[in-house]
């Protein structure tokens, strides 16, 4: 089992966590007409990087979303931080 650090609860078992998506995807503003390729990019395109990745995760037991930086080859977690801090 791998231990992931939740920024709120501290180190917890990996099975308590859910991968939500890549960080930095911005939904197109629907006030304007969105071209099909732009919708496609938002809905389907993935950076899917090998190595350092920035992702949004949820700790299921406390329901908080947070940012995780990790290595997608070694699975080493490099940093986790609250999404709230990002928004501030």
């Amino acid at each position, binding site marked *: 089992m791998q231990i992931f650090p939740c920024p709120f609860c501290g180190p917890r078992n990996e099975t308590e966590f*859910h*991968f939500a998506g890549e960080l930095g995807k911005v939904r197109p503003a629907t006030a304007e007409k969105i071209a099909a390729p732009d919708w496609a990019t938002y809905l*389907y*395109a993935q950076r*899917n*990087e090998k*190595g350092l990745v920035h992702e949004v995760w949820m700790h299921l037991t406390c329901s908080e979303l947070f940012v995780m930086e990790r290595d*997608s080859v070694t699975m080493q977690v490099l940093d986790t931080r609250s999404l709230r801090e990002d928004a501030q």
Partner: protein
Amino acid sequence: MTRYSAFNLLREGLRGHTGWGKAWRSPAPKSSYDAVIVGAGGHGLATAYYLAKNHGLTNVAVLEKGWLGGGNTGRNTTVIRSNYFYPESAALYDLSVRLYENLSRELNYNVMFSQRGMVVTAHSEPDMEMAARQVNAMRLNGVDAEFLDRDQVRKLAPLLNYRADMRFPIHGGVLQPRAGTGRHDAVAWGYARAADALGVDIIQNCEVQDFIFEAGRCVGVHTSKGDIRAAVVGATVAGHSSVIAKMAGCGDLPITSYALQAFVSEPLKPVLDTVVLCPPFGTYVSQSDKGGLVIGGGLDRIPSYGQRGNLPVQETVLAGLVEMMPALASVKLLRHWAGIVDVTPDSSPIIGPSGVEGLYLNCGWGTGGFKAIPAGGYLFAHILATGTHHEISRPFDRNRFVTGHLIDEGAASGIAH
């Protein structure tokens, strides 16, 4: 190349097996080819073979960063089937099963395709209605399928758990009689040997590190063994498709790479002569000719390029196996491993132009591209040789994510992952 035959086997047996020769050459790369294929998995090797055989294109190289068949082709659980829902998928995967049916003869290499059938169990009355719908869809698409009640499943797979107090009791299932298993390495080796015999250069330990562009067109590759020019380049790199796309600058693909794990048990006396998948547990199993149980399950939940297993998934898959077939509870595992699979949002592959001129993609097979190797190679060769889609590959073009014409087999045929 010495042909494999009963006569040659006898002759070599008498000569101490000294006259067989190498199954393929190990040539140094030439400076240019009519077509270069990146990745010597099953899809890359089959593409090269069909380029030579169907299109007369023999000045072809397949470049492999490791050893041929060392990716997912040599790591999968070898289930071959065409029990899909949509007509587009049925056309694609059934072409593949039909090519598999004659493949050992065609390649003069025993790929051990054993059509032992595959049963997908149903565990409730709503499940049974979905199973009936699946059987009807398959038959309408011209694919063999049979709707089974509980007793019929029991006859085919007596090892399954038929206790009434089971968490998800078995009600019946769907059988595809023509489905089965093959020998994964033999598929790679058979295509490699046959392609080599037609003049294709297979170059191992040769990593593609970048592409060569001229006037916006891809005209070759930079490799760890030097530059190689090509009239056309095809990428068949499975879990590394996003890495290749980034190199080529053809935009982020609708692909996520995940580890998919598999398990093999110690060899047992014959206990199971069909492939069984129990969807509520997400576990499937078959028995190899050596006696080992070959066990697979769901995808890992976390994007990954780490080609190894981990404990949470192992626990889920094996707990499922023990619930499916309690008699196996004390069987020991022999090996456990993972491959990096390329998963698309609709669980269907991407075949066709990459968006960069001169470069084509064959990827996105995810957890189920071993069964598709003959068709993937056949269709991709057509695209590389003619520059246009084959009717069967057209719906699988990358542009379906823009037009919205997804072929959502993940939902339709309930692919577990």
